């Protein structure tokens, strides 16, 4: 399978992903916190954007990876892909939580509210709950193959939420501002665009790196279980 080989080839460069992420995030943080100017309207608070936007974008990307991985699993029944999906869900939950928290912190000084039931916020909260349900479902099943299949099914159904999260600010009337990078062009001053892009790249690289590490971790956990003879009958490595 060519994709499996591609992933194995990518895995050899794991350290590069981690190093690249550290470099991008380091420079991005320095620029975002120190050199970038305050916004004409929001003032210093605009700096929250440099953590909020990358984590929100990465969480959507992570869910997309989870969705594709789930379809792939149902198609090929490859336990390594299942491991990858499991790992992705954990990291995606982490990123969604971060985006919700930083978004809430950003909303207070700009919109004057911690939380409101705006379509973007509501659909994002649903994404969070879906991922929590996904991870809980996995802990309540003993049979590994059943666990993988059911989790994949859940991830595929939950995917309906994703286009709604992404496009809600363009389709409907929301308190959340529309997309800043779209067909209309890029609405960032260059001094602000550079740290944002660096942080976004760093965040995606970090996601890839975390995904590699976490997939390895889950795989090794299973391997150890198998080696110790526990659950040997139910584990197909």
């Amino acid at each position: 399978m060519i994709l499996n080989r591609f992933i194995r080839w990518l895995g050899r460069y794991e350290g590069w992903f981690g190093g690249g992420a550290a470099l991008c995030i380091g420079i991005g943080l320095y620029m975002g916190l120190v050199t970038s100017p305050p916004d004409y309207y929001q003032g210093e608070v605009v700096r929250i954007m440099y953590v909020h936007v990358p984590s929100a974008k990465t969480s959507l990307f992570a869910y997309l990876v989870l969705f594709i991985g789930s379809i792939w699993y149902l198609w090929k029944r490859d336990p390594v892909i299942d491991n990858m999906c499991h790992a992705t869900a954990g990291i995606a939950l982490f990123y969604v939580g971060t985006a919700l928290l930083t978004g809430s912190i950003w909303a207070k000084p700009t919109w004057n509210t911690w939380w409101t039931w705006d379509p973007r916020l509501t659909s994002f909260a649903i994404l969070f709950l879906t991922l929590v349900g996904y991870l809980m479902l996995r802990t309540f099943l003993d049979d590994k193959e059943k666990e993988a299949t059911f989790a994949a099914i859940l991830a595929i159904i939950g995917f309906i939420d994703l286009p709604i999260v992404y496009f809600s600010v363009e389709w409907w009337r929301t308190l959340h501002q529309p997309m800043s990078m779209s067909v209309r062009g890029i609405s960032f001053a260059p001094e602000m665009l550079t740290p944002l892009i660096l942080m976004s790249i760093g965040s995606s690289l970090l996601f890839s790196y975390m995904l590699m590490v976490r997939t390895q971790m889950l795989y090794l956990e299973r391997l150890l279980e198998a080696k110790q003879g526990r659950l040997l009958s139910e584990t197909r490595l």
Partner: protein
Amino acid sequence: MRLGRKTGIVFSISLIVFGLGYLAYGNFGKNLVYFVTPSEVVTFESDRYGRKIRVAGMVVQASLKVVPNTLKITFDLTDGAETIPVAFEGVPPDLFKEGTGAVVEGFWDADGVFHSHMIMAKHEEDYMPIEMKNAGMTLPTKGIIKTLQVK
């Protein structure tokens, strides 16, 4: 009737895409509201007076007035077509000012004034330093008025 499996899948996927497209661009999107606009507020019948709603609009330039020594302010809210007066009591958010977007929560009453107890500032999606703004630069945005109207 034997529908082929592939035909079924293609048909299903197109139906789902059509459904999502309808959510996005159909008649529906105009009605799914987090807030209403001043144009809609002025058409309210008397049975909708006093009911809690949110109205979004742009604060009209030079309409903001502070009642001295109180926390009461009044201002006008517009969506380009209609303008309504708003009476507000409380501390307005930091980013609330003339010429920017605001979402006010409260009720519309028979006296033709929107009574509000909560203001949320709605900002645009452009970000630039203050020197650039003072130099008169603009970045591409949808514009507050346009985000209120949705197609």
